Protein backbone atom coordinates (compact mmCIF):
# COMPACT_ATOMS: atom_id res chain seq x y z
CA UNK A 1 0.00 0.00 0.00
CA UNK A 2 1.06 3.59 -0.70
CA UNK A 3 1.04 6.35 1.88
CA UNK A 4 0.56 9.82 0.34
CA UNK A 5 1.53 12.73 2.62
CA UNK A 6 0.49 16.30 1.82
CA UNK A 7 2.23 18.80 4.13
CA UNK A 8 0.35 22.09 3.98
CA UNK A 9 0.79 25.27 5.97
CA UNK A 10 -2.08 24.41 8.32
CA UNK A 11 -2.52 20.62 8.19
CA UNK A 12 -0.65 17.50 7.22
CA UNK A 13 -3.01 15.17 5.35
CA UNK A 14 -2.16 11.48 5.06
CA UNK A 15 -3.88 9.10 2.65
CA UNK A 16 -3.46 5.35 2.50
CA UNK A 17 -3.96 3.91 -0.99
CA UNK A 18 -4.72 0.36 -1.98
CA UNK A 19 -3.94 0.63 -5.69
CA UNK A 20 -5.87 3.67 -6.92
CA UNK A 21 -8.36 3.48 -4.06
CA UNK A 22 -8.06 5.80 -1.06
CA UNK A 23 -8.67 3.45 1.83
CA UNK A 24 -8.13 5.69 4.87
CA UNK A 25 -7.12 9.25 5.50
CA UNK A 26 -6.01 11.30 8.50
CA UNK A 27 -5.41 14.96 9.19
CA UNK A 28 -2.93 16.30 11.77
CA UNK A 29 -1.78 19.80 12.71
CA UNK A 30 1.24 21.31 10.93
CA UNK A 31 3.65 22.37 13.66
CA UNK A 32 7.29 22.66 12.55
CA UNK A 33 8.49 22.71 16.18
CA UNK A 34 7.28 19.15 16.78
CA UNK A 35 9.98 16.52 16.54
CA UNK A 36 10.32 13.47 14.31
CA UNK A 37 9.70 11.31 17.38
CA UNK A 38 6.42 13.04 18.16
CA UNK A 39 5.18 12.82 14.57
CA UNK A 40 6.56 9.32 14.25
CA UNK A 41 4.70 8.10 17.31
CA UNK A 42 1.48 9.79 16.15
CA UNK A 43 1.57 8.66 12.52
CA UNK A 44 2.76 5.16 13.44
CA UNK A 45 -0.20 4.75 15.77
CA UNK A 46 -2.71 6.20 13.31
CA UNK A 47 -1.57 3.69 10.69
CA UNK A 48 -1.61 0.91 13.32
CA UNK A 49 -1.31 -2.56 11.80
CA UNK A 50 -1.44 -1.19 8.25
CA UNK A 51 2.07 0.05 8.84
CA UNK A 52 3.44 -3.37 7.92
CA UNK A 53 1.62 -3.32 4.56
CA UNK A 54 3.30 -0.11 3.35
CA UNK A 55 5.22 -0.53 0.11
CA UNK A 56 5.89 3.13 -0.64
CA UNK A 57 5.54 6.69 0.58
CA UNK A 58 5.37 9.90 -1.45
CA UNK A 59 5.41 13.39 0.04
CA UNK A 60 4.46 16.86 -1.16
CA UNK A 61 5.51 19.65 1.20
CA UNK A 62 5.19 23.43 1.18
CA UNK A 63 6.74 23.70 4.65
CA UNK A 64 10.51 23.19 4.28
CA UNK A 65 11.00 22.92 8.06
CA UNK A 66 8.73 19.87 8.21
CA UNK A 67 10.08 18.10 5.12
CA UNK A 68 13.16 16.88 6.98
CA UNK A 69 11.11 15.82 10.00
CA UNK A 70 8.69 13.82 7.87
CA UNK A 71 11.61 12.26 5.98
CA UNK A 72 12.97 11.00 9.31
CA UNK A 73 9.51 9.73 10.33
CA UNK A 74 9.29 7.69 7.11
CA UNK A 75 12.70 6.08 7.57
CA UNK A 76 12.70 5.55 11.36
CA UNK A 77 9.06 4.80 12.11
CA UNK A 78 7.66 3.50 8.81
CA UNK A 79 10.86 1.88 7.47
CA UNK A 80 10.32 3.26 4.01
CA UNK A 81 12.38 5.71 1.95
CA UNK A 82 9.94 8.46 0.86
CA UNK A 83 9.73 10.04 -2.57
CA UNK A 84 9.90 13.79 -1.88
CA UNK A 85 8.13 15.49 -4.79
CA UNK A 86 10.25 18.36 -6.06
CA UNK A 87 12.78 19.29 -8.74
CA UNK A 88 14.13 16.18 -10.47
CA UNK A 89 11.06 14.05 -9.78
CA UNK A 90 9.21 12.96 -12.90
CA UNK A 91 5.67 14.36 -13.02
CA UNK A 92 4.76 13.74 -16.67
CA UNK A 93 3.76 17.38 -17.01
CA UNK A 94 5.85 20.04 -18.80
CA UNK A 95 6.21 23.10 -16.55
CA UNK A 96 6.21 26.46 -18.31
CA UNK A 97 6.97 28.41 -15.11
CA UNK A 98 9.90 30.88 -15.40
CA UNK A 99 11.85 28.77 -12.91
CA UNK A 100 10.20 25.36 -12.41
CA UNK A 101 12.20 24.85 -9.19
CA UNK A 102 10.28 27.74 -7.67
CA UNK A 103 6.89 26.08 -8.15
CA UNK A 104 5.37 24.73 -4.91
CA UNK A 105 5.02 20.94 -5.10
CA UNK A 106 1.34 21.03 -4.03
CA UNK A 107 0.57 23.13 -7.10
CA UNK A 108 2.11 20.74 -9.62
CA UNK A 109 0.57 17.79 -7.77
CA UNK A 110 -2.91 19.32 -8.01
CA UNK A 111 -2.38 20.13 -11.68
CA UNK A 112 -1.32 16.54 -12.44
CA UNK A 113 -4.32 15.05 -10.61
CA UNK A 114 -6.80 17.40 -12.28
CA UNK A 115 -5.47 16.97 -15.81
CA UNK A 116 -5.52 13.19 -15.37
CA UNK A 117 -9.31 13.54 -14.99
CA UNK A 118 -10.14 16.14 -17.60
CA UNK A 119 -7.56 15.73 -20.40
CA UNK A 120 -8.59 19.28 -21.33
CA UNK A 121 -7.75 22.88 -20.41
CA UNK A 122 -8.20 22.94 -16.63
CA UNK A 123 -8.11 25.37 -13.74
CA UNK A 124 -7.55 23.96 -10.25
CA UNK A 125 -8.75 26.06 -7.32
CA UNK A 126 -7.23 25.02 -3.99
CA UNK A 127 -9.06 26.69 -1.10
CA UNK A 128 -6.52 26.20 1.68
CA UNK A 129 -4.29 28.50 3.76
CA UNK A 130 -3.78 30.35 0.50
CA UNK A 131 -6.33 30.31 -2.35
CA UNK A 132 -4.34 28.97 -5.30
CA UNK A 133 -5.28 28.73 -8.95
CA UNK A 134 -3.33 26.53 -11.39
CA UNK A 135 -3.87 26.71 -15.12
CA UNK A 136 -3.14 23.63 -17.22
CA UNK A 137 -3.35 23.93 -21.02
CA UNK A 138 -5.35 21.50 -23.17
CA UNK A 139 -2.04 19.79 -24.04
CA UNK A 140 -1.38 19.13 -20.38
CA UNK A 141 1.28 21.79 -19.77
CA UNK A 142 1.47 23.57 -16.44
CA UNK A 143 1.26 27.21 -17.56
CA UNK A 144 1.12 29.22 -14.33
CA UNK A 145 -1.19 30.37 -11.62
CA UNK A 146 -2.53 32.84 -9.13
CA UNK A 147 -2.08 32.97 -5.33
CA UNK A 148 -4.51 34.91 -3.15
CA UNK A 149 -5.00 35.00 0.65
CA UNK A 150 -7.02 32.03 1.91
CA UNK A 151 -10.53 32.48 3.26
CA UNK A 152 -9.62 31.23 6.76
CA UNK A 153 -6.54 33.41 7.35
CA UNK A 154 -8.18 36.50 5.79
CA UNK A 155 -11.23 36.14 8.07
CA UNK A 156 -9.05 35.61 11.14
CA UNK A 157 -7.13 38.77 10.25
CA UNK A 158 -10.44 40.66 9.96
CA UNK A 159 -11.61 39.58 13.42
CA UNK A 160 -8.21 40.23 14.97
CA UNK A 161 -7.72 43.67 13.45
CA UNK A 162 -11.15 45.32 13.29
CA UNK A 163 -11.93 46.43 16.83
CA UNK A 164 -15.71 46.23 16.65
CA UNK A 165 -16.23 43.11 14.59
CA UNK A 166 -17.19 39.93 16.38
CA UNK A 167 -16.18 36.52 15.08
CA UNK A 168 -18.86 34.87 12.93
CA UNK A 169 -19.12 31.34 11.62
CA UNK A 170 -18.12 31.11 7.96
CA UNK A 171 -21.32 30.14 6.15
CA UNK A 172 -23.79 31.19 3.49
CA UNK A 173 -26.03 34.06 4.65
CA UNK A 174 -29.61 34.46 3.41
CA UNK A 175 -28.91 37.85 1.78
CA UNK A 176 -26.00 39.55 0.06
CA UNK A 177 -26.76 42.93 1.68
CA UNK A 178 -26.50 42.34 5.43
CA UNK A 179 -28.86 44.25 7.74
CA UNK A 180 -26.81 43.50 10.80
CA UNK A 181 -23.07 43.32 11.36
CA UNK A 182 -22.74 39.54 11.56
CA UNK A 183 -24.83 39.15 8.38
CA UNK A 184 -22.68 41.75 6.62
CA UNK A 185 -19.45 40.00 7.66
CA UNK A 186 -20.78 36.57 6.67
CA UNK A 187 -21.73 37.95 3.29
CA UNK A 188 -18.37 39.61 2.77
CA UNK A 189 -16.49 36.43 3.54
CA UNK A 190 -18.77 34.00 1.71
CA UNK A 191 -19.94 35.96 -1.34
CA UNK A 192 -16.69 37.95 -1.39
CA UNK A 193 -14.67 34.77 -1.86
CA UNK A 194 -17.12 33.26 -4.32
CA UNK A 195 -16.84 36.49 -6.33
CA UNK A 196 -13.05 36.37 -6.13
CA UNK A 197 -12.96 32.79 -7.41
CA UNK A 198 -15.45 33.32 -10.23
CA UNK A 199 -13.83 36.59 -11.25
CA UNK A 200 -10.30 35.17 -11.33
CA UNK A 201 -11.42 32.07 -13.26
CA UNK A 202 -13.16 34.34 -15.79
CA UNK A 203 -10.05 36.51 -16.15
CA UNK A 204 -7.75 33.49 -16.60
CA UNK A 205 -10.05 32.09 -19.30
CA UNK A 206 -10.26 35.43 -21.07
CA UNK A 207 -6.49 35.97 -20.95
CA UNK A 208 -5.76 32.50 -22.31
CA UNK A 209 -8.70 32.42 -24.72
CA UNK A 210 -10.09 29.12 -23.41
CA UNK A 211 -13.05 27.64 -21.61
CA UNK A 212 -11.49 25.51 -18.91
CA UNK A 213 -12.86 22.82 -16.64
CA UNK A 214 -12.67 23.98 -13.04
CA UNK A 215 -11.94 21.56 -10.20
CA UNK A 216 -11.88 22.77 -6.59
CA UNK A 217 -10.20 21.22 -3.58
CA UNK A 218 -9.20 22.26 -0.06
CA UNK A 219 -11.09 22.72 3.20
CA UNK A 220 -13.48 25.43 2.04
CA UNK A 221 -14.33 23.89 -1.36
CA UNK A 222 -17.54 22.06 -0.32
CA UNK A 223 -18.88 25.25 1.29
CA UNK A 224 -18.20 27.68 -1.57
CA UNK A 225 -18.62 25.50 -4.68
CA UNK A 226 -22.47 25.40 -4.64
CA UNK A 227 -22.59 29.22 -4.87
CA UNK A 228 -19.91 29.48 -7.55
CA UNK A 229 -20.84 29.88 -11.20
CA UNK A 230 -17.54 28.44 -12.43
CA UNK A 231 -16.52 25.48 -10.21
CA UNK A 232 -17.53 22.29 -12.02
CA UNK A 233 -16.37 19.64 -9.55
CA UNK A 234 -15.08 19.35 -5.99
CA UNK A 235 -12.53 16.77 -4.92
CA UNK A 236 -11.41 16.94 -1.32
CA UNK A 237 -8.58 14.48 -2.00
CA UNK A 238 -7.20 15.90 -5.24
CA UNK A 239 -3.74 16.55 -3.78
CA UNK A 240 -3.44 13.05 -2.29
CA UNK A 241 -4.48 11.60 -5.63
CA UNK A 242 -1.86 13.66 -7.45
CA UNK A 243 0.79 12.41 -5.05
CA UNK A 244 -0.30 8.83 -5.81
CA UNK A 245 -0.13 9.46 -9.58
CA UNK A 246 3.35 10.97 -9.39
CA UNK A 247 4.50 8.11 -7.16
CA UNK A 248 3.30 5.62 -9.80
CA UNK A 249 5.06 7.55 -12.56
CA UNK A 250 8.32 7.30 -10.64
CA UNK A 251 8.08 3.66 -9.65
CA UNK A 252 11.16 1.71 -10.66
CA UNK A 253 13.32 4.82 -11.00
Amino acid at each position, binding site marked *: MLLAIDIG*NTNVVLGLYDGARLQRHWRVLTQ*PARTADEYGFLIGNLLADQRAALTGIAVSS*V*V*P*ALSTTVGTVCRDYLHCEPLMIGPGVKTGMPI*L*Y*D*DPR*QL*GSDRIVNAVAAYERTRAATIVVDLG*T*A*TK*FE*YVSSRGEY*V*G*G*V*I*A*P*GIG*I*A*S*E*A*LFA*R*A*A*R*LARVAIGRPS*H*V*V*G*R*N*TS*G*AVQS*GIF*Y*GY*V*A*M*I*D*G*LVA*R*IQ*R*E*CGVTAQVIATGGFAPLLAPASATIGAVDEFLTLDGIRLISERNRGH
Partner: protein
Amino acid sequence: MFLAIDVSNTQMLLGLYNGTRLQRHWRVMTDVGRTADEYGFLVHGLLGEFAAQVSGIAVSCVVPAMNTVIEALCRDYLRTPPLFVGPGVKTGMPILYDNPREVAADRIVNAIAAYERTHATTIVVDFSTATIFDYVSEKGEYVGGVIAPGLGIASEALFERAAKLYRVELAKPKHVVGRNTVTAIQSGLIYGYVAMVDGLVQRIQHEHGVRARVIATGAYAGLLAPESETIEEVDEFLTLDGLRLIYERNRAAN
Protein backbone atom coordinates in the same frame (compact mmCIF):
# COMPACT_ATOMS: atom_id res chain seq x y z
CA MET B 1 -12.63 76.48 10.32
CA PHE B 2 -14.01 72.99 10.62
CA LEU B 3 -11.96 69.89 11.50
CA ALA B 4 -13.13 66.41 10.45
CA ILE B 5 -11.54 63.42 12.22
CA ASP B 6 -11.99 59.89 10.84
CA VAL B 7 -10.58 57.28 13.22
CA SER B 8 -10.22 53.86 11.61
CA ASN B 9 -8.58 50.70 12.94
CA THR B 10 -5.23 51.49 11.34
CA GLN B 11 -5.11 55.27 10.78
CA MET B 12 -6.67 58.55 11.77
CA LEU B 13 -7.39 60.96 8.94
CA LEU B 14 -7.80 64.64 9.82
CA GLY B 15 -9.23 67.17 7.36
CA LEU B 16 -9.35 70.92 7.80
CA TYR B 17 -12.20 72.65 5.94
CA ASN B 18 -12.63 76.24 4.97
CA GLY B 19 -16.34 76.25 4.14
CA THR B 20 -16.86 73.27 1.81
CA ARG B 21 -13.24 73.25 0.70
CA LEU B 22 -10.76 70.76 2.14
CA GLN B 23 -7.75 72.96 2.78
CA ARG B 24 -5.31 70.55 4.48
CA HIS B 25 -5.30 66.94 5.58
CA TRP B 26 -3.06 64.74 7.73
CA ARG B 27 -2.79 61.03 8.49
CA VAL B 28 -1.55 59.60 11.78
CA MET B 29 -1.36 56.07 13.10
CA THR B 30 -4.15 54.72 15.32
CA ASP B 31 -2.52 53.50 18.52
CA VAL B 32 -4.81 52.89 21.50
CA GLY B 33 -1.80 52.92 23.81
CA ARG B 34 -1.06 56.59 23.14
CA THR B 35 -2.50 59.21 25.49
CA ALA B 36 -4.63 62.31 24.88
CA ASP B 37 -1.58 64.44 25.65
CA GLU B 38 0.55 62.69 23.04
CA TYR B 39 -2.16 62.99 20.37
CA GLY B 40 -3.01 66.51 21.52
CA PHE B 41 0.57 67.69 21.16
CA LEU B 42 0.87 66.00 17.75
CA VAL B 43 -2.42 67.24 16.28
CA HIS B 44 -1.97 70.74 17.69
CA GLY B 45 1.49 70.83 16.13
CA LEU B 46 0.28 69.56 12.74
CA LEU B 47 -2.52 72.16 12.65
CA GLY B 48 -0.01 74.88 13.50
CA GLU B 49 -1.44 78.36 13.02
CA PHE B 50 -4.84 76.84 12.15
CA ALA B 51 -5.25 75.29 15.62
CA ALA B 52 -6.63 78.52 17.02
CA GLN B 53 -9.08 78.90 14.12
CA VAL B 54 -10.91 75.61 14.61
CA SER B 55 -14.49 76.38 15.62
CA GLY B 56 -16.15 73.03 14.95
CA ILE B 57 -15.10 69.37 15.02
CA ALA B 58 -16.93 66.20 13.96
CA VAL B 59 -15.57 62.72 14.60
CA SER B 60 -16.27 59.29 13.17
CA CYS B 61 -14.59 56.65 15.31
CA VAL B 62 -14.78 52.86 14.92
CA VAL B 63 -12.27 52.20 17.72
CA PRO B 64 -14.17 52.60 21.01
CA ALA B 65 -10.94 52.79 23.02
CA MET B 66 -10.02 55.99 21.15
CA ASN B 67 -13.23 57.88 22.00
CA THR B 68 -12.05 59.38 25.29
CA VAL B 69 -8.63 60.23 23.83
CA ILE B 70 -10.18 62.14 20.92
CA GLU B 71 -12.67 63.86 23.21
CA ALA B 72 -9.89 65.09 25.51
CA LEU B 73 -7.65 66.11 22.61
CA CYS B 74 -10.43 68.27 21.11
CA ARG B 75 -11.43 69.92 24.40
CA ASP B 76 -7.97 70.42 25.90
CA TYR B 77 -5.85 71.19 22.85
CA LEU B 78 -8.30 72.68 20.35
CA ARG B 79 -10.81 74.23 22.81
CA THR B 80 -13.70 72.79 20.81
CA PRO B 81 -16.12 70.08 21.96
CA PRO B 82 -16.35 67.47 19.20
CA LEU B 83 -19.53 66.09 17.65
CA PHE B 84 -19.25 62.30 17.64
CA VAL B 85 -21.29 60.70 14.86
CA GLY B 86 -23.41 58.02 16.49
CA PRO B 87 -26.90 57.27 17.77
CA GLY B 88 -28.83 60.49 18.45
CA VAL B 89 -26.90 62.59 15.95
CA LYS B 90 -29.03 63.86 13.08
CA THR B 91 -27.78 62.50 9.78
CA GLY B 92 -30.70 63.13 7.45
CA MET B 93 -30.60 59.49 6.31
CA PRO B 94 -33.12 56.83 7.46
CA ILE B 95 -31.29 53.70 8.60
CA LEU B 96 -32.98 50.39 7.79
CA TYR B 97 -30.47 48.25 9.68
CA ASP B 98 -32.01 45.75 12.14
CA ASN B 99 -30.48 47.77 14.95
CA PRO B 100 -29.41 51.23 13.70
CA ARG B 101 -27.12 51.64 16.73
CA GLU B 102 -25.04 48.81 15.36
CA VAL B 103 -24.00 50.52 12.11
CA ALA B 104 -20.46 51.84 12.50
CA ALA B 105 -20.17 55.62 12.24
CA ASP B 106 -17.86 55.62 9.20
CA ARG B 107 -20.39 53.64 7.16
CA ILE B 108 -23.21 56.14 7.69
CA VAL B 109 -20.82 59.00 7.05
CA ASN B 110 -19.66 57.48 3.75
CA ALA B 111 -23.24 56.74 2.70
CA ILE B 112 -24.29 60.35 3.34
CA ALA B 113 -21.36 61.83 1.43
CA ALA B 114 -21.94 59.53 -1.53
CA TYR B 115 -25.71 60.05 -1.71
CA GLU B 116 -25.24 63.81 -1.50
CA ARG B 117 -23.39 63.53 -4.82
CA THR B 118 -25.53 61.02 -6.66
CA HIS B 119 -29.06 61.46 -5.30
CA ALA B 120 -29.57 57.98 -6.78
CA THR B 121 -29.13 54.32 -5.80
CA THR B 122 -25.52 54.11 -4.64
CA ILE B 123 -22.95 51.60 -3.44
CA VAL B 124 -19.95 52.88 -1.49
CA VAL B 125 -16.83 50.70 -1.42
CA ASP B 126 -14.40 51.60 1.37
CA PHE B 127 -10.98 49.92 1.12
CA SER B 128 -9.90 50.21 4.72
CA THR B 129 -8.77 47.62 7.31
CA ALA B 130 -11.91 45.85 6.11
CA THR B 131 -13.38 46.21 2.62
CA ILE B 132 -16.81 47.64 3.38
CA PHE B 133 -19.77 47.99 1.00
CA ASP B 134 -22.72 50.23 1.89
CA TYR B 135 -25.91 50.21 -0.09
CA VAL B 136 -28.11 53.33 -0.24
CA SER B 137 -31.52 53.14 -1.91
CA GLU B 138 -32.77 55.58 -4.53
CA LYS B 139 -34.78 57.32 -1.80
CA GLY B 140 -31.64 57.88 0.24
CA GLU B 141 -32.16 55.16 2.85
CA TYR B 142 -29.22 53.28 4.32
CA VAL B 143 -30.26 49.70 3.56
CA GLY B 144 -27.29 47.61 4.71
CA GLY B 145 -23.94 46.39 3.59
CA VAL B 146 -21.19 43.84 3.25
CA ILE B 147 -17.93 43.57 5.22
CA ALA B 148 -15.03 41.58 3.75
CA PRO B 149 -11.39 41.24 4.89
CA GLY B 150 -9.29 44.20 3.69
CA LEU B 151 -6.55 43.83 1.09
CA GLY B 152 -3.80 44.93 3.50
CA ILE B 153 -4.62 42.59 6.40
CA ALA B 154 -5.39 39.65 4.11
CA SER B 155 -2.06 39.94 2.27
CA GLU B 156 -0.15 40.30 5.58
CA ALA B 157 -1.87 37.13 6.80
CA LEU B 158 -0.79 35.34 3.61
CA PHE B 159 2.89 36.28 4.07
CA GLU B 160 2.84 35.37 7.77
CA ARG B 161 1.08 32.06 7.45
CA ALA B 162 2.37 30.50 4.24
CA ALA B 163 5.91 29.29 4.89
CA LYS B 164 7.26 29.52 1.36
CA LEU B 165 5.63 32.79 0.32
CA TYR B 166 7.29 36.12 0.84
CA ARG B 167 6.17 39.72 0.81
CA VAL B 168 5.68 41.21 -2.65
CA GLU B 169 5.12 44.75 -3.78
CA LEU B 170 1.42 45.53 -4.16
CA ALA B 171 1.44 46.27 -7.87
CA LYS B 172 -0.52 45.21 -10.92
CA PRO B 173 1.24 42.39 -12.81
CA LYS B 174 1.25 42.19 -16.60
CA HIS B 175 -0.66 38.91 -16.74
CA VAL B 176 -3.41 37.29 -14.73
CA VAL B 177 -1.70 33.88 -14.93
CA GLY B 178 1.58 34.30 -13.07
CA ARG B 179 4.64 32.41 -14.30
CA ASN B 180 6.59 33.02 -11.13
CA THR B 181 5.63 33.25 -7.47
CA VAL B 182 5.90 37.04 -7.24
CA THR B 183 3.56 37.72 -10.16
CA ALA B 184 1.21 34.89 -9.09
CA ILE B 185 0.78 36.60 -5.69
CA GLN B 186 0.49 40.07 -7.23
CA SER B 187 -2.23 38.73 -9.51
CA GLY B 188 -4.08 37.10 -6.61
CA LEU B 189 -4.00 40.31 -4.57
CA ILE B 190 -4.81 42.83 -7.29
CA TYR B 191 -7.06 40.88 -9.68
CA GLY B 192 -8.43 38.78 -6.81
CA TYR B 193 -9.61 41.87 -4.94
CA VAL B 194 -10.93 43.55 -8.07
CA ALA B 195 -12.91 40.37 -8.79
CA MET B 196 -14.23 40.39 -5.23
CA VAL B 197 -15.38 44.00 -5.52
CA ASP B 198 -16.97 43.66 -8.96
CA GLY B 199 -18.64 40.38 -8.03
CA LEU B 200 -20.09 41.74 -4.78
CA VAL B 201 -21.33 44.93 -6.47
CA GLN B 202 -23.04 42.81 -9.13
CA ARG B 203 -24.62 40.53 -6.52
CA ILE B 204 -25.91 43.50 -4.51
CA GLN B 205 -27.42 45.00 -7.67
CA HIS B 206 -28.91 41.66 -8.65
CA GLU B 207 -30.43 41.05 -5.20
CA HIS B 208 -32.12 44.46 -5.22
CA GLY B 209 -32.93 44.64 -8.92
CA VAL B 210 -31.15 47.95 -9.37
CA ARG B 211 -28.25 49.55 -11.14
CA ALA B 212 -26.31 51.61 -8.65
CA ARG B 213 -23.68 54.33 -8.87
CA VAL B 214 -20.46 53.03 -7.34
CA ILE B 215 -18.08 55.33 -5.44
CA ALA B 216 -14.87 54.02 -3.88
CA THR B 217 -12.73 55.42 -1.10
CA GLY B 218 -9.97 54.23 1.24
CA ALA B 219 -6.29 53.39 0.97
CA TYR B 220 -6.42 50.96 -1.98
CA ALA B 221 -9.13 52.66 -4.05
CA GLY B 222 -6.63 54.39 -6.34
CA LEU B 223 -4.77 51.13 -7.01
CA LEU B 224 -7.79 48.89 -7.67
CA ALA B 225 -10.36 51.19 -9.29
CA PRO B 226 -8.70 51.39 -12.74
CA GLU B 227 -9.03 47.57 -13.06
CA SER B 228 -12.61 47.44 -11.81
CA GLU B 229 -15.58 47.23 -14.15
CA THR B 230 -18.00 48.63 -11.60
CA ILE B 231 -16.25 51.49 -9.73
CA GLU B 232 -17.05 54.78 -11.47
CA GLU B 233 -15.44 57.26 -9.16
CA VAL B 234 -12.77 57.40 -6.47
CA ASP B 235 -12.83 59.93 -3.65
CA GLU B 236 -10.04 59.58 -1.12
CA PHE B 237 -11.74 62.08 1.20
CA LEU B 238 -15.32 60.80 1.07
CA THR B 239 -15.49 60.15 4.84
CA LEU B 240 -14.16 63.62 5.67
CA ASP B 241 -16.73 65.17 3.37
CA GLY B 242 -19.52 63.17 5.01
CA LEU B 243 -18.41 64.43 8.43
CA ARG B 244 -18.58 67.99 7.14
CA LEU B 245 -22.14 67.40 5.83
CA ILE B 246 -23.32 65.87 9.12
CA TYR B 247 -21.76 68.70 11.10
CA GLU B 248 -23.57 71.28 8.96
CA ARG B 249 -26.90 69.45 9.29
CA ASN B 250 -26.59 69.38 13.06
CA ARG B 251 -25.52 72.99 13.31
CA ALA B 252 -28.50 74.02 11.20
CA ALA B 253 -30.81 71.94 13.42
CA ASN B 254 -29.61 73.45 16.70
